[in-house]
């Protein structure tokens, strides 16, 4: 496999150099940016300019992208595979912009990796293809030979290697062999359970153990969450009803204890929106199998487990499930899927305002300048209250695909004549500036349009 590296920084500062040594089936590796001839020789990596990048047949390459501001190029190049290397917002960057486009990059990527455990856990709740690029295992988990060099792989490097390979060599599905995702979750679980023994009074360690056990579908998650909750109380950290206590509802839903799950959620429900959700949950509870599945999906959604909710909703038919799936696609930044689903719903008449309760809009947090959506509260209110209009999503995608005029038209349509448009255009300008800034930095003086 050939690779193109789209870095956030110059080659000298590139943090994933060892990872490039370990790339499976390594053919040609190109770095988009300047490298001295000596460094190219020693690393076996070719430096390419932007113009050269676009002359390559990208379908024969896997992109390794470590800045969200490469997203327009990722979409333009249409590579064989996209691998996102996700990072916390670096100093000096606009965190709202960085986080939003990082989330969009992650959703677009075929595989994502990160050295941030926070991002790793967040992505686990949004998708399946995520690798934690750090670890605590002192042992070697395999060997890799490249030409004359021998590399001893750590646990996460072995997993990363396998995850990359499986992009183009999908495994034969076997009921017995665990996938790499579960192997890494198992490592993280074992690590945190051992930490609980070493730090028995530390609530966050118990919470992380509970989180990994939950992701693995292990019922012991509730025991560790209970311990974490008790420790929070003993430390007088009482502001944990939503952050900690609500998690019990997701764990119960995963166990199949729907009645208990609804109760646990309802204990945490105080706002009008939350109470309406609880009422809807109780109604579903007294329904049949389809309602129970909607209920399970809703419990996962209110616990920010979009991945589990989407898995259920995408199996269900019916307008209710599709409306909720639409919102969850938006919530997990799968915006292209969201637009596609919305078009399907429009075609079959289930996307009408009175059906979605959204007035033709869909909701998601985190977009600057997003006007509020009227009518989100109520019995059928979807999970994401901080909302943005579908035209904003459409406009953002136009922008990323280089269709600037279409983007402006969408933003104007979403904002009408009020000041919302100004904020959207400001964000658009910020994004364009960030993209140009990145290119200038990485290409180190190379002329670029």
């Amino acid at each position: 496999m050939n690779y193109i590296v789209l870095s956030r920084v110059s080659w000298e500062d590139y943090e994933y150099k060892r990872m490039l040594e370990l790339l499976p089936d390594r053919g040609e590796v190109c770095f988009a940016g300047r490298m001295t001839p000596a460094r190219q020789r020693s690393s076996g990596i070719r430096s390419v300019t932007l113009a050269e990048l676009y002359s390559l047949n990208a379908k024969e390459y896997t992109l390794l992208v470590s800045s969200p501001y490469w997203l327009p190029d990722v979409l333009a190049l249409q590579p064989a595979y996209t691998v996102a290397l996700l990072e916390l917002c670096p100093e000096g960057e606009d965190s709202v912009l960085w986080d939003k486009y990082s989330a969009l990059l992650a959703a677009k990527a075929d595989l994502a990796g990160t050295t941030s455990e926070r991002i790793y856990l967040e992505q686990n709740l949004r998708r399946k293809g995520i690798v934690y690029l750090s670890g605590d295992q002192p042992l070697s988990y395999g060997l890799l030979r490249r030409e004359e060099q021998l590399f001893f792989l750590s646990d996460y490097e072995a997993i990363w290697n396998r995850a990359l390979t499986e992009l183009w060599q999908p495994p034969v599905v076997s009921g017995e062999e665990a996938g790499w995702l579960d192997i890494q979750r198992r490592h993280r679980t074992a690590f945190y359970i051992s930490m609980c023994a070493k730090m028995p009074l530390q609530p966050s360690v118990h919470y992380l153990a509970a989180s990994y056990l939950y992701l693995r579908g292990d019922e012991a998650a509730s025991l560790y969450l209970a311990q974490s909750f008790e420790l929070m109380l003993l430390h007088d950290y009482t502001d944990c009803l939503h952050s900690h206590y609500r998690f019990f509802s997701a764990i119960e839903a995963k166990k199949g204890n729907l009645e208990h799950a609804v109760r646990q959620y309802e204990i945490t429900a105080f706002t009008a929106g939350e109470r309406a959700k609880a009422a809807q949950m109780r109604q579903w509870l007294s329904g049949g199998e389809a309602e129970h599945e909607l209920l399970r999906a809703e419990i996962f959604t209110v616990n920010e487990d979009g991945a589990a909710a989407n898995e259920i909703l995408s199996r269900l038919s019916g307008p209710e499930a599709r409306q909720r799936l639409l919102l969850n696609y938006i919530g997990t930044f799968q915006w292209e899927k969201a637009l596609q689903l919305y078009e399907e719903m429009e075609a079959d008449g289930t996307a009408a305002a009175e059906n979605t309760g959204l007035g033709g809009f869909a909701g998601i947090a985190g977009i600057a300048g997003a006007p509020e959506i009227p009518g989100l509260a109520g019995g059928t209110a979807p999970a994401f209250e901080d909302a943005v209009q579908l035209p904003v999503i459409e406009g953002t995608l136009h922008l990323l695909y280089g269709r600037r005029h279409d983007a402006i038209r969408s933003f104007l349509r979403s904002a009408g004549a009020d000041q919302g448009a100004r904020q959207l255009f400001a964000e658009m300008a910020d994004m364009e500036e960030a993209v140009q800034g990145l290119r200038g930095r990485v290409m180190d003086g190379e002329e670029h349009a």
Partner: protein
Amino acid sequence: MAKSMHEPLRKASGNRLTAMMQVRNETGRYLEQVLEELSEFVDDIVIVDDGSTDGTVRLCNSFAKVSKLVTLEHSIFGREWELRKTLWDLAVSTGPDWLLSVDADEFYEDRAKQEMRRLIDQDAYDWVAFRLFDFWGGTTHYREDEHWNIHMKHTRTLVRYLPGFYYYTPRMDHHVPRLALSYAVLPGFLAELRVKHYGWALEPEELRRKYDRYMELDPEGKWGSLEQYRSILDEHPRLVEWRE
């Protein structure tokens, strides 16, 4: 009686209030008066008798609102966590909406009794805390100094019963919180309503006996403050007159 899943967890009207208390050898003290007053404003009274050897059980049974009474053959006061849990389990077995944790020497002022229904018939908060005053040497003055100032903050004594909630009480032998710590994460209401505690409204020789008992149970101050234990014997405590 389990709550129906068709109904909201929190009711804004028609809530049933159950008082819960643990007692031991209370004859000749305040129990009769406490039960009389509680009978005016609660729906049920649930009691655990911690191995009384006097007429306490008979006295409790003479009140119609005492709906459940468990008598322990031997006192488990030395394992207070267990005693609290026994009382809690008994109280929730009645399917209450709200629980009022009362000691056998605590009196809610009239205004508090009048407000009680309004305090529980709402769905915005799950507990109510009051100001407790430690009366000293009699029933006309409360004590207020460095070691005796519990009325300066609020004490949670009234809680909504939430089936399925994770109730956590630390397993301590003494000075166990009267209600589960878990309520602290739920929204509550700090009421400017007062509760009179007559547990220290005693003659000097009785105070001395109480001091001796505390020191016997907790000689190293493991469960409470030794300084506070010693202050029980202060000859001239600062007392403030109670005004209704």
